């Protein structure tokens, strides 16, 4: 009975959304306010129905109702409750419903926040949200319905269970956070679309759009980083980023979204770049849908992709239709998007932002190009060419370094134009320190991109500190504050700016971490008890090897004693070789899983994978990696999140006006 209720809810939601879209369009034509009020209520009903449907599915998952196909396919009786819950986004139809759920929550927030604002724009904002909802509702109603009953002529005693790779806390929260980011960009897109349709002046809605974009950006960033962290901790190939199509799918909207967050500042302050911003936010939104297409369609072979699904063509046509509508509307309204002012000088903050944008977009293009290259070559030459990580590294590293350079240069430039004395004041110190560091790095023996990357990291860090120093210094001088008070008030008074600098600092740390990957080392070897082998100056000795039977798997555990060359004990590592479903009568259905162990310091990570075991001779085989500076990536990401939170934190507007 209840599953039917779920099905009915999503169908009804689809019906209500169509009705609401019609009413809104009528309202836009004839202005009868009652139509709008009714349509808005319908939009609320649509979101409520979707939320109800989601709760029903969660309830069925937790109570293991295997009469529902989705429940039977993604959980089993022995799945822990937490992962029964996370199974909501483990499969295709469930994740579409979950996507709708997030969008509906966002929709309700938007409606509530703006019930007395943006009266001209609101109808269009709702139309956009409802159209996106309708698209997903159609998919979940007709194509992959999460409430589909199990097609079986027998009693389904147990479900298939959740992949053990996904039974991990990080993996349970990585998709929803990523989805928050993906879905989050729908709202700024809706605002931008509405502004385009109503020719509303920028100043008011930009604030809302920026807040929403920041929320989406934070979620997207955290989602991407968590994904990398999970891959590093679980997958056992020793890296956090593989340039897999699905990773790229989340990285592309991140790049354009980041560009948008920068250039929207110019629009808010100077009313410039209006057309550019419109294009950017539309591309970002389209890329989120395109990303879902890449994930869901199976066009690209990838560790993430679900097997062949009928959704590909729907997503692709949705993206293409939206692309045409957006392009058409922008061309139609071109005259409204003209900026009044122009950039006055090449060496101004404005053009700094502009260059930053160009680089972000080309970086996005590079990733896009690499991602679809196989499809292009297949169409043109008939041979499918796969694009490996070396290609992406080759293309993106130089572009990324230019971006890093701009991160340092941009904030040092003055608005409108930078005078010569300005240049001298702001650039001398960072440049000198950067050059000194360059010499040091060369003397250490670093070469190539490593040197450039580290030098630029120093440059950017110094320039960020100078920004803080200058701000604090001026407050100390003007208001006689102590340094600490000055710092706190400085940040409080301009959260977005100084929060942004924290984000930059985080990015610099992450770049240092990425640079460390140039020195990664890897070795594979087998060890019997008390044998040892070494990698670089680290020795690995197998001291213990024993089997253990646990509640849902069987495990071989190896204990490796890790020592330095001088005999000092560094740590001991315990990688495991597990077999899930080890009692399954069919050996091919048992699933091995390597649980790796990492010893991590700021300087380097020692990464051990138990890859296989020869039980006859008691020899264990390991894959050992030494990855320098990986911790910088994680610490950098904490600072990035911290900085974004500062920038997002609601400031008291009344207080600001008084001050």
């Amino acid at each position, binding site marked *: 009975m209840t599953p039917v209720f779920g099905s009915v809810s999503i169908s009804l939601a689809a019906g209500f959304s169509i009705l609401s879209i019609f009413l809104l369009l009528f309202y836009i034509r004839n202005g009868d306010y009652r139509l709008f009020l009714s349509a808005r209520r319908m939009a609320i009903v649509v979101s409520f129905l979707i939320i109800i449907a989601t709760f029903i599915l969660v309830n069925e998952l937790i109570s293991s109702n295997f009469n529902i196909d989705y429940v*039977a396919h*993604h959980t*089993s*009786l*022995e799945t822990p409750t937490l992962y029964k819950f996370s199974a909501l986004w483990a499969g295709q139809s469930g994740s579409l419903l979950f996507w709708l759920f997030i969008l509906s929550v966002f929709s309700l927030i938007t409606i509530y926040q703006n019930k007395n604002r943006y009266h001209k724009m609101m109808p269009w904002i709702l139309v956009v949200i409802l159209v996106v909802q309708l698209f997903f509702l159609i998919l979940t109603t007709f194509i992959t319905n999460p409430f589909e009953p199990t097609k*079986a002529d*027998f*009693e*389904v*005693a*147990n479900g*298939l*269970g*959740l992949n053990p790779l996904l039974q991990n806390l990080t993996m349970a929260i990585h998709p929803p956070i990523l989805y928050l980011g993906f879905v989050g960009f729908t709202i700024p897109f809706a605002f931008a679309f509405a502004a385009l349709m109503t020719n509303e002046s920028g100043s008011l809605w930009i604030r809302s759009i920026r807040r929403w974009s920041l929320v989406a950006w934070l979620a997207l960033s955290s989602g991407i980083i968590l994904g990398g962290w999970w891959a590093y901790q679980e997958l*056992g190939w020793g890296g956090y980023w593989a340039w897999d199509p699905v990773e790229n799918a989340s990285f592309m909207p991140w790049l354009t979204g980041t560009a948008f967050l920068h250039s929207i500042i110019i629009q808010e302050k100077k009313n410039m770049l209006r057309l550019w911003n419109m294009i950017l936010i539309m591309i970002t939104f389209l890329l989120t849908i395109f990303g879902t297409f890449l994930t869901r369609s199976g066009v690209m072979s990838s*560790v993430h992709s*679900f097997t062949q699904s009928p959704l590909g063509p729907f997503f692709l046509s949705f993206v293409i239709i939206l692309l045409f509508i957006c392009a058409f509307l922008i061309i139609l309204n071109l005259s409204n998007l003209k900026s009044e002012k*122009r*950039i*006055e*000088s*090449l060496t101004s903050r404005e*053009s700094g932002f*502009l*260059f930053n944008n*160009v*680089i972000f977009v*080309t970086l996005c*293009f*590079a990733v896009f190009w*690499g991602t679809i*290259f*196989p499809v292009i070559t297949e169409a043109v030459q008939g*041979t*499918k*060419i*796969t*694009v*490996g990580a*070396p*290609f992406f590294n*080759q*293309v993106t590293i*130089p*572009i990324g370094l230019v971006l890093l350079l701009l991160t340092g240069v941009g904030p040092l430039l003055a608005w409108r134009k930078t005078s010569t004395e300005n240049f001298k004041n702001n650039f001398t110190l960072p440049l000198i320190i950067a050059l000194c560091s360059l010499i040091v790095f060369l003397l250490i023996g670093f070469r190539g991109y490593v040197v450039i990357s580290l030098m630029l990291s120093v440059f950017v860090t110094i320039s960020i500190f100078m920004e803080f120093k200058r701000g604090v210094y001026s407050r100390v001088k003007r208001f006689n504050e102590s340094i600490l008070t000055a710092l706190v008030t400085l940040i409080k008074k301009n959260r977005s700016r100084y929060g942004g600098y924290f984000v930059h600092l985080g990015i610099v740390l992450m770049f240092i971490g990425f640079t460390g990957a140039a020195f990664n080392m890897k070795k*594979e070897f*087998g060890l019997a008890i008390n044998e040892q082998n070494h990698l670089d100056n680290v020795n690995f000795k197998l001291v213990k090897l024993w089997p253990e*039977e646990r509640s*849902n798997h069987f495990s071989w555990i190896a204990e490796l004693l890790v020592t330095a060359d001088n005999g000092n004990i560094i740590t001991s590592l315990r990688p495991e070789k597990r077999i899930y*479903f080890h009692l399954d*009568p*069919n050996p*091919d*259905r048992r*699933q091995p899983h390597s649980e790796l162990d990492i010893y991590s310091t700021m300087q380097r990570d020692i990464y051990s994978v138990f*890859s*296989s075991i*020869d039980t006859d001779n008691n020899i264990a*085989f390991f*894959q050992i990696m030494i990855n320098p500076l990986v911790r910088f990536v994680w610490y950098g990401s904490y600072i990035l999140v911290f900085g974004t939170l500062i920038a997002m934190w609601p400031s008291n507007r009344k207080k600001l006006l008084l001050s």
Partner: protein
Amino acid sequence: MSQKYKVILAVVGLSLISTFWILWSSFNPVNEKALVKFISVGEILDSNSNERVRIGGIVADSSIIISPSNRMEVYFDIKEGASKLPVRFVGARPDLFKHGAEVIVEGAFFNGSFNADMLQTKCASRYEGDLRDAASYKLDDINI
């Protein structure tokens, strides 16, 4: 030249250089692993070239032989349709590597066998599987 044109010129120049760089890189890969042809098992058996390629297929039933002297070394056959390709791989095998698994290998054809230095498995079939199997697999069996 006015500042306005300088800005436009710089933006256009920057985008052109980067676009050129991206396109140039896609025809001049820095190493052989950057861009690899994906071909079918039949195609590689017909051709005699030993260029680096990527191949996808199913691990043929009871074809996996782990070398007794070096457990890192494995021999197996990849089948795609009727064609079968013997493969040699040295290195850590992915967890899901087993008979019937869908795998992707990368390497070069040499002396009648394919030397792979990359072995990837696709998603576990268990989770796309038939529920009938699950019906015979009850909770009592796995509680230890």
